[in-house]
């Protein structure tokens, strides 16, 4: 699954995203859902299969990404290197 961003109306749901983007449920990380990044400007994030992302890139106005989704870790405690 890869992270993409899409423009959807305010209050968008996963079903709405599936419909707008013509995605099947199995192509989407349903547990992750649709994440409101900037609801005031209709920007949402979701995780989709690499195949689906590739298909969506054919219509670049539909989505942005894939975006890096790097591993994150606690900053501490720092190691003992000096």
């Amino acid at each position, binding site marked *: *699954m*890869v*992270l993409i*961003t899409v423009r959807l109306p305010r209050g968008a749901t996963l079903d709405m995203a599936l419909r707008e983007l013509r995605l099947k449920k199995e192509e989407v990380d349903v*547990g*992750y*859902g649709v*994440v*409101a*990044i*900037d*609801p*005031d400007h209709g*920007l949402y*994030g979701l*995780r989709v299969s*690499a195949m689906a992302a590739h298909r969506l890139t054919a219509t670049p106005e539909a989505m942005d*990404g*894939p*975006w*890096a*989704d*790097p*591993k*994150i*870790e*606690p*900053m*501490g*405690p*720092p*190691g*003992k*290197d*000096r």
Partner: protein
Amino acid sequence: MRVLVQLRPSPDVVAAVADPAVTATAADVVNGLPGVLLDPTFTPVAVPRPLPARAGGDPLSLNQPLIFSMAPRDASVLVRGEIADDEVSTRLALLPGRDGVVGVYADPVIQSSLTCGGDGPVGDWRDVRRLLAVERLHAEGYDGSGVALAVTDTGVNEPHVKAALGSDFVLDRERSWSPDGVPGRPGEFDVDHGTMCAFDALLAAPKASVIDIPVLLSRRPGGSALDGLLSDAMAAFAHLRTVLDAQPAETRALVVTNSWGSFSPDWDFPPGHPGNYSDNPAHPFNLIVGSLAAAGADILFAAGNCGRECPDGRCSYPDRPITGANSHPAVVSVAGVDVTGERVGYSSQGPGRLADRKPDLAAYTHFAGSGAFGPGEPDSGTSAACPVAAGVVAAIRSRVPSTVLSPSDLRTLLMRSADDRGVLGYDYDYGYGVVNVPGIVEALRARASETRTADGSPWLAV
């Protein structure tokens, strides 16, 4: 940056500087240098010129027998000064050849014992409370009451925090949130990094409501640029936006403390790639950070533990280790100092990748505190410094909601009131300085006396 400037003034000036019977000053040697704040307390020093010992020797080689001439026509003079950190490269390039300048050299602080990872604690949490003037803060009514304090980390263990604090605190189960698939309930996670963060934030804001966000317990595979954990942090921030939007405007106060980051460029697309995170303000996580801050949240990030003197072994960025949201212009990026006020050697130095002037300020770390890592182990890293600073912000917010003082204005206030350390003014080690509670309280008082709200009532009752 502190520098030594080598000058070749007229021979009579060199002779005066070299004469032990004469006390010269920087002003005697040079009538100011553009962009260099000369140190008037530093007595200029005459430096001999190395010359070939044998006739016909190479005048530019130091790998031959040399003699050192202190003759006024040969010797030069060193003066000391400071160049603003964001001007260093320009000044270093332009100064030589001007006003008798021969060269400009770094004048590093000579220090053998910066606190590093693995060192024992320096002071304890009571020292931190004293340094933060917590009694005064609370006496003025700044104690975190009514403030939502989100700890995005490995989860909080409520009983451990209570035992370590020796008092109760409010764990806000209703507004806590976990990524999909993370088992466990708010306040019941294993004692670990997140428990330390909660304890450290509560030092200044014991009455804040802690929102437990165990985003770092997510178990996506990671290890590649596309399948890590940052997307879970993005979902956490989306949840926090709903928390913020649900608050009444007159008491809107959400502080988010983030003691985490991404250590390796191998997990990211390279800078310049449109999907990159570390250097890309358009990455969706960086967008959601800006969006949440614009909506009224105070967001703090640890600067990181990749300081030059003793970096964490995980640090993989070859330079500019304050990356991504940790360097976002809308967050407070927090460096670490021990309770003596000295920067800890692992605290990451700027400039940041999204905004140049990072870190913003410094707060206390490496003290005996929560005991989350076992008896005798300090609360350490900029991981501890960040929630210590977040606690101060949460304390302030108990009387000053974000609808009255925006996160941006509060950030400015924190920076302006900070206790300047390192070189004069902003620097990449301490930012604007160490968080300074008395200075903040005074600044709030001054602002309150000058400002009234739209209906004519005092901005802040003092």
